[in-house]
């Protein structure tokens, strides 16, 4: 949560995020889908998005599709006992009714594997979010400059 607030603060201060960048479909509100610019040579991109399930029923993000990469997987990165690991979120990302969930919290991310080109800050990637109940929703991820506040085991600096 602390991290979410930090990200929101950064997002509001960032000129890139100045233009509102959100999507609504039915009762699903999708805010600020972004991808961190990756270094050249990196064949993976980390994607993040805030999801507000405004409906009365629990939902779940079960997958993401894009024509811009070989595949997209939902993962959670962790640092436990000094070891960095990454695990697939096999059950997707739960979206309880009425709650705001950030894909990005606790090391969660969408991993875009083998993008079709190098994406730099300012680029956009079309994608489809797939929800258990809300179905398929087309959105656009915006590529932003890398911030050091996203990785697990990082960014919890008491400042």
């Amino acid at each position, binding site marked *: 949560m602390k991290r979410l607030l930090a990200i929101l603060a950064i997002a509001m201060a960032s000129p890139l995020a100045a233009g509102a960048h959100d999507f609504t479909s039915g009762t699903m509100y999708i805010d600020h889908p972004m991808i961190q610019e990756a270094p050249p*040579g990196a064949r*993976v991109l980390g994607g993040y998005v805030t999801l507000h399930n405004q409906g009365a029923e629990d939902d779940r993000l079960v997958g993401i599709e894009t024509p811009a990469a070989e595949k997209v997987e939902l993962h959670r990165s962790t640092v436990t006992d*000094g070891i960095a690991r990454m695990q697939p979120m096999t059950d997707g990302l739960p979206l309880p009714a009425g709650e705001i969930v950030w894909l990005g919290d606790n090391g969660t*991310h969408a991993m875009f594997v083998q993008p079709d080109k190098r994406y730099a800050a300012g680029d956009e990637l079309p994608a489809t979010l797939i929800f258990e109940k809300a179905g398929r929703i087309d959105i656009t991820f915006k590529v932003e400059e890398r911030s*050091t506040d996203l*990785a697990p*085991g*990082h960014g919890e600096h008491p400042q």
Partner: protein
Amino acid sequence: MKKSGILHNVRIVLWALVAVAAVAATYFTVVPRERSLDQGVAFYSTPFKLTNHDGAEVTQSDFLGKPSAWFYGFTQCPEVCPTTLAEMSQLLDALGPDADKLNVVFVSVDPERDTVEVMKDYVAYFDQRIVGVTGELEAVSAMATARYVYFEKIPLDGGDYTMEHSANVQLADADGYFFGTLDGEEPVETRLAKLRRLIE
């Protein structure tokens, strides 16, 4: 008379004990401050032969003579590795001219995919002062074992794989003795203080 003679002897014995204690204290506090007993072997001077991001052979001696900071990761790592390298770059900036007193090395634990070409572009994106190192998987494994660094290949669906690896940055002094770690969880100021102590 007799009583004071005994006291005199006791006093001599006590003074002798004080002298022994003083010598012992000097030995255990002053001498070990130079090189603590539990530091054991300088495992950062264990021999290795790998390749840097320019394609040149590098050995342990290329990184001795100056303190060094080492991170072991891989380029297809979406979060922990790029964040750690970006933070190392920020720390080097914060050190200012003193950054020259430190070697910063990024060793690939996925040398099968991290070729010299991949490493060169990847490392340069973060900081020209960071040296990327890759090589034969066996040589990287031997180096990691010698330095108590963990990494392992974890298969993913569809024949792909990811790497589990030690997340900390390891520090070594100019002679290759282990000096401690930088932890991503600790405040940047703490990490900067540790680096300052290392290069003092």
